[in-house]
């Protein structure tokens, strides 16, 4: 009996030793797209703490965080929604919620998790604690660019219908939805850091659809219209992603479609102020948290390159070739480091954003998205 008790006590101690008391502010996840698992990483130690498996098809995946930054909600391609405990390095909850899914968002108060789906097209609303399904809004269209807005609202765009919808989930079981015409084939969307403006990039026409959510009665206006006027589009081998908004100071930096350019607009009047020539078709255009730099990665076949724009001069100041198939970039919370996933090198690379020196390379199989827990406190992430 005493031996048995001792064994149990040792078991408890061992369990405790596995999870030392610690915060989650410097943790994050890296999606290992080919193996259906995520790596839990530590941005201070620049190390991999462990892996969580069994998340299904992560060939396209995105992640949002609970407001306490302990749990990550992982939206997989196959419609799996998995709540991962960063500290326990285990799955807390998991549901299959659709046939083909693209991402999700979390409400301002952290109580609702919303998934955006291609098949069946629409959004689904879940209780963030239990993943119980609370409501759904069918769209009869693929949903792109879902973003959380203040006031328990969510904005999203309909690829097939060319509309922006805003659903008010202040009564989660009874969503109320406003619809706005947006333009041809919105491919992704973003909300500005203050939660005021929702933008949907258009693939079927040159321009961005802009909704001022403080003045929704004005409807959607188009900005950057005809930026490629009269010129044949270059082939787009990968759709740009607008998720990591790039707003630096008063300027917003956006990928052009079918042009090897980053477009810059003034946030005051939404007029184009500059075009910056870059190496290839931009995919992610992301501002370092302080806004001084904008990092750009590119579509196939130029996805081994990364360029850095100095927002003070509007010039490309650095061109790097960090590795093969750079799919995603994520800044440390205050931007001193950037983590890059090099899918075809099976590595995540960590760079100093000031010196552009490589600080570390972490071996991880087929890494894609990198998501740090500091996203928990940011609107639109």
């Amino acid at each position, binding site marked *: 009996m005493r031996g048995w008790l001792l064994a149990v006590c040792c078991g408890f101690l061992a369990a405790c030793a596995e999870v030392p008391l610690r915060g989650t502010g410097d943790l994050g996840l890296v999606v290992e*797209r080919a193996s259906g698992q995520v790596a839990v990483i530590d941005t201070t130690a620049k190390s991999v703490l462990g892996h969580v498996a069994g998340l299904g098809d992560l060939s*396209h995946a995105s992640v949002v965080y609970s407001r306490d930054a302990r749990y990550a909600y992982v939206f997989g391609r196959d419609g799996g929604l998995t709540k991962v405990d960063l500290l326990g390095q285990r799955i807390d909850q998991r549901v299959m919620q659709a046939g*083909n899914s693209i991402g999700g968002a979390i409400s301002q108060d952290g109580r609702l998790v919303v998934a955006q789906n*291609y098949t069946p097209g629409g959004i689904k609303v879940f209780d963030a604690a239990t993943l119980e399904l609370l409501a759904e809004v069918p769209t009869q269209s693929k949903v792109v660019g879902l973003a959380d807005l203040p006031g328990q609202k969510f904005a999203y765009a309909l690829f097939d219908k060319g509309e922006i919808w805003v659903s008010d989930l202040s009564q989660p079981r009874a969503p109320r939805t406003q619809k706005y015409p947006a333009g041809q084939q919105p491919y992704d969307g973003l909300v500005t850091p203050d939660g005021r403006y929702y933008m949907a990039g258009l*693939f079927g026409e040159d321009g961005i659809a802009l909704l001022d959510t403080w003045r929704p009665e004005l409807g959607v206006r188009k900005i950057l219209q005809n930026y490629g006027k009269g010129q044949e589009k270059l082939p*787009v081998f990968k759709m740009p992603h607008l998720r990591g908004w790039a707003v630096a100071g008063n300027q917003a930096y956006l990928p052009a479609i079918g042009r090897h350019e980053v477009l810059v607009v003034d946030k005051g009047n939404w007029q184009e102020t500059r075009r910056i020539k870059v190496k290839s078709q931009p995919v992610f255009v992301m501002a370092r948290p302080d806004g001084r730099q904008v990092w750009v990665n590119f579509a196939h076949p130029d996805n081994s390159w990364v360029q850095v724009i100095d927002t003070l001069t509007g010039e490309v100041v650095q061109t790097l070739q960090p590795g093969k198939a750079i799919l995603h970039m994520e800044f440390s919370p205050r931007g001193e480091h950037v983590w890059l996933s090099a899918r075809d090198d099976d590595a995540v690379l960590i760079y100093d954003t000031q010196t552009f020196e490589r600080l570390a390379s972490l071996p991880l199989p087929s890494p894609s998205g990198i998501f740090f827990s500091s996203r928990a406190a940011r609107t639109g992430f």
Partner: protein
Amino acid sequence: MHAVTVYSGGQCKKLSRIKAARPLLPQAAVMMRNWFGMLALSGMQTLGMPPAALAGEVQKSAFDLPATIRLVRQDCGSCHGMTLQGGLGTPLTREALAGQSPEALAIVILHGRHGTAMPPWKSLLSEAQAQWIAERLLEGFPEEKRQ
């Protein structure tokens, strides 16, 4: 020549905006080349073999099979899904493509589909490669084998 219908259907008509739809004639020429290519290849059952020994226009170059499989899974996969079950792009599974001709698919691969997000891959893929991809898609595309 039923393959042409892929292009001449409603898809094409709507699309006037971006430099208008291609005239059918060059596509027909490409198809003819593909047909001749098929004839030339008919002695070889395995299209997967790099057709380096062949004369004519089909073999722009021998191509790397693992790299081609990887390109389809990873790069076509960024729109069509790594499992090819669809994403922003349509599904490319055997079931979804049933009834299509490989020649028509190869043309879509090389020249894209106007009015959709499907780009022309002709700057990156040879005709032989596109034809090989089309045929493999129709029979269920092979998985990637990574070392």
